[in-house]
């Protein structure tokens, strides 16, 4: 059976109908479908114009996207590690990986403790997707960083950091009561600052 000519499902509920046909399709189909979902969610999270329903699409959270971006970032930074840091590659990989997941966990927990009513994984999903600009920045610095002075390297770092922070702050700030907004937003800012700094340094 061939599904390549069907109209691509635009959201998760349409996917449900196709679920029963999973076992009969080829592996590449399954993987491409998941990748398309990730790409769709990525566009949704990072391009502010796409969000017309105030983050409701995020209810269909998934952790594949965050995992892919986290692994990509950790691998990019650890490939360069030997020549530029005095720690080994595995140290760098471990620190970045732990930092992203523990960081996302703690930031979400913080929002919940401040009285925010949000599902835990939804927020981790959002924070994970917003790591994508940091990925871009790490790749830029990895490829052409050695030819640029430190100050010039700061420009893409600041742009990508601002992009990440701006995308996730809108969602985070809407979760908590207004007088605690800055308390919920500051940890997000610190989280992306930390990751940006690492992509600059390593």
């Amino acid at each position, binding site marked *: 059976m061939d599904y390549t000519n069907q109209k691509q499902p635009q959201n998760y509920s349409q996917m449900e109908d196709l679920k029963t046909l999973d076992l009969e399709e080829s592996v590449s189909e399954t993987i491409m479908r998941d990748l398309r979902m990730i790409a769709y969610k990525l566009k949704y999270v990072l391009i502010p114009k796409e969000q017309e329903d105030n983050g409701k699409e995020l*209810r269909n*959270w998934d952790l594949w996207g965050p995992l892919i971006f986290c692994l990509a970032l950790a691998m990019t930074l650890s490939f360069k590690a030997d*020549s*530029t*840091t*005095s*720690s080994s590659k595995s*140290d*760098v990989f471990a*620190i970045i990986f732990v*930092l992203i997941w523990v960081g996302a966990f*703690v930031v979400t*927990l*913080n929002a*919940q*403790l*401040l*009285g925010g*009513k*949000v*599902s*835990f*994984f*939804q927020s981790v999903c959002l924070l994970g997707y917003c790591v994508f600009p940091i990925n871009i920045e790490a790749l830029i610095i990895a490829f052409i960083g050695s030819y640029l*002075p*430190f100050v010039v390297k700061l420009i893409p770092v600041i742009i990508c950091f601002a992009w990440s922070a701006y995308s996730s702050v809108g969602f985070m700030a809407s979760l908590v009561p207004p*007088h*605690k907004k*800055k*308390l919920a937003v*500051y*940890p997000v800012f*610190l989280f992306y*600052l*930390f990751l940006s*700094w*690492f992509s600059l*340094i*390593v």
Partner: protein
Amino acid sequence: MDFGIQNQTDEQQQANKESSNQNVNEGNKKQSGCCAFLTVEFYTPYFNVTENDVIQRIQGTFLPLKPDFLNLIRGNPDLWGPIWINATLIFMITAIANLRQIDEEKENQSFVISYVPQATALLYIIAFGTPIVLAAVMKFLGVDLSFFQTICLYGYSMSTLLPITILCYFQNELFLWLIIVYGFANSSLFLIVNLKEELDKLQIQKKYIIIGIVVTMQLSLYLFYKLVFFSYVTE
């Protein structure tokens, strides 16, 4: 009971677990039960502050001899400060230590990032472990210590390290030692003055045990800071 948690098939289990936990505790007014301290609800009362409160509390730590701080936190100790001041410090230690190492002439710049796990362990053990130790010792000496107030106190005492870390950027050894000693004196005084209330419940000799523990931990923190993170940078 409605927690506002989005109802989703994947979330059902988590929502049900949390609501049944809450129902179990509904019977007793206080959150009791062997694992109450593992739920989110147990800690929510300690996050009842606004950003202005936090800023005022941090400002209260810079003048240790004025007992303003206790008045600021009376009845409303918070945990936001201790957690995020330490997180900020971890970032600043890494950033400033790396900035110190920048050397324009060197071809392949090598930056240290192993400070992250070291700093995390150091700061969180001192900020949260010392109050636990103090509470245990005080209990042993027969007096109760208001636990969350002490954690709050310790967490905010770390904010002395914020400007000190920034100043550690400069390479002058003498200057670094001066500010480290100043930081140690400032935070130790701050802690002792604010613990005075609790200490007054003890006899004179036993007070010195507590003061001794406090001072030792602060000393080890500041020495670690100087000797490991911002040690002498070779030319």
